[in-house]
């Protein structure tokens, strides 16, 4: 028997798993079902077949699949679903997880190595889950002299701010957006403004030297690149006359703005990299100078949350790039239409015939939109990840020099291009295109 795990017995292992299963079932029956009953009374339940669903009716739907579809549909169109699952947090977190996996495998491929390989049989697809489990079971160490409330709150607030950013991104046509705001673009910039605050607060609260330097660097970097970020989009605002993100997407049905405003797109992309603290602009986390920058004192799940937040932020930024410059969800119809008879008659599955009229919960257009959106977003994410394998880190004074001299100059070039296009009558109302 090995010395590392001297008391390991397979039977113990099985018993512990059975124990857990037993307790989960017991707790679910004793607590979960009464709780669900109570909650059903308080939730605003959807109207089905012209009568309000009662909690009892709700339970009966579990047994009757033909009643579930409208219920699911109504859930999918509720605000709660939008916030938690589809255009909201769940979708973003899923894409963030995909981003991490793609980053690892792509970087490994670029560097002629294998990357995560063993966890999850197929090319290490479960590596992220393994890492999450590891992080969640690690001890959280907080420096003794740290400012504890801020230190605890910072990772959570970081994720929450990133999620609030996600709320403004329209994913598909027909109102698939959490918050359809009239001044969406400005709201985006207002939310971006929170990231430096959280960063610098967490850096300050750790009461350690390296996080402090990292936080101040992060502040300088984020704050300096907000101006080019804001100004580079001004060209689009001039040409569309709108700040609503959905309207900006709809204005790109025929052509994408990157065709006319490539300089703005490049500036936005570079500023985006800086805001995301990605290489080559990852100065706040420069490990060879300041150990891990403002993340130095985070340990265990707190670090995991900051990583989650930063990848959600990465998704949100690349989605914003898609929305602004790459035409959002617009694209040719590639999703095959649903078969008519399934919609009308339902599916015949062997001996059981489940007549579920209107099976597709989502229409064809919406799925097509989402597919295009995800494809484009993944493309942008790939472009964000690629520099990590190609470029070294830049220095802070060079960074600020780039931000304040070159990018702002390019922003104004971009604005003049937009103005020229507008006044020459190429674009805008009554334009040629």
């Amino acid at each position, binding site marked *: 028997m090995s010395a590392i795990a001297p008391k390991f017995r397979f039977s113990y292992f099985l018993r512990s798993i059975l124990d857990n299963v037993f307790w989960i079932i017991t707790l679910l029956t004793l607590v979960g079902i009464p709780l669900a009953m109570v909650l059903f009374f308080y939730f605003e339940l959807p109207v089905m077949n012209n009568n309000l669903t009662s909690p009892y009716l709700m339970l009966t739907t579990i047994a009757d699949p033909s009643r579930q579809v409208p219920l699911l549909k109504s859930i999918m169109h509720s605000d709660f679903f939008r*916030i*938690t699952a589809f255009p909201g947090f769940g979708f973003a977190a899923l894409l963030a997880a995909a981003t991490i996996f793609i980053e690892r495998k792509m970087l490994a491929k670029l560097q002629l190595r294998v990357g995560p390989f063993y966890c999850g049989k197929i090319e290490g697809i479960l590596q992220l889950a393994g890492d999450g489990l590891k992080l969640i079971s690690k001890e959280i160490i907080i420096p003794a002299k740290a400012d504890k409330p801020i230190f605890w709150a910072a990772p959570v607030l970081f994720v*929450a701010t990133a999620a609030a950013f996600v709320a403004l991104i329209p994913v598909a046509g027909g109102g698939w957006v959490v918050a*359809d705001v009239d001044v969406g673009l400005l709201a985006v910039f207002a939310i971006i403004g929170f990231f430096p605050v959280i960063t610098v607060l967490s850096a300050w609260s*750790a009461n350690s030297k390296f996080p402090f330097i990292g936080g101040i660097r992060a502040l300088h970097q984020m704050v300096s690149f907000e101006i080019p970020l804001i100004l580079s989009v001004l060209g689009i*605002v001039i040409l569309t006359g*709108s700040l609503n993100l959905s309207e900006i997407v709809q204005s790109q049905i025929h052509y994408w703005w990157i065709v006319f405003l490539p300089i703005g797109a490049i500036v936005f992309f570079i500023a985006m990299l800086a805001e995301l603290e990605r290489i080559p602009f990852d100065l706040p986390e420069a490990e060879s100078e300041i150990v891990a920058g403002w993340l130095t004192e985070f340990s265990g*799940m707190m670090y995991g949350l900051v990583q989650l937040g930063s990848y959600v932020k990465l998704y949100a930024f690349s989605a914003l790039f898609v929305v602004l410059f790459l035409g959002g969800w617009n694209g040719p119809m590639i999703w095959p239409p649903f078969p008519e008879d399934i919609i009308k008659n339902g599916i015949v599955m062997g001996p059981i015939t489940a007549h579920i009229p209107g099976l597709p919960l989502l229409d064809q257009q919406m799925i097509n939109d989402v597919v295009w959106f995800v494809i484009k977003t993944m493309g942008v994410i790939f472009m964000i990840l690629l520099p990590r394998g190609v470029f070294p880190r830049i220095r802070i004074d060079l960074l600020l020099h780039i*931000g*304040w001299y070159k990018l702002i100059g390019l922003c104004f070039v971009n604005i003049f291009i937009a103005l020229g296009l507008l006044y020459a009558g190429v674009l805008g109302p009554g334009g040629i295109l």
Partner: protein
Amino acid sequence: MVGEYAANFSHVLLMFGFAIVAVGPALLISRMISPRKRSNPVKFLPMECGQVPQGEGRTHFMMQYYSYVLMFVVFDVMAIFLYAWGSSLLSLPKTATLPIIAFLGIMFAAMAFALYQSKRRNIW
């Protein structure tokens, strides 16, 4: 109607709140299942590369690039004014270009001064 826009924005707040509710338990669970050994006080010292920390963590540490932060405050305002101008450009008369040119001119003069100051490293 009063509060019409606020209703839209409430979704952003709800999303914010939901994220807190969703990820907060991760910290709590981690706190519950992770080992907690408080016997070693060295563990709770701030990171100092293996040495005993000297001095304070929060010193008066000022990067030489303070002027950029100061500039940001001003240029943030400017950028948002430019948004107000840009979004209403289509319905503006041509004469309205003059004030924005004056505005930009003054701001660029200030920016030039600030960039000149930020270059003089030895005064920071």
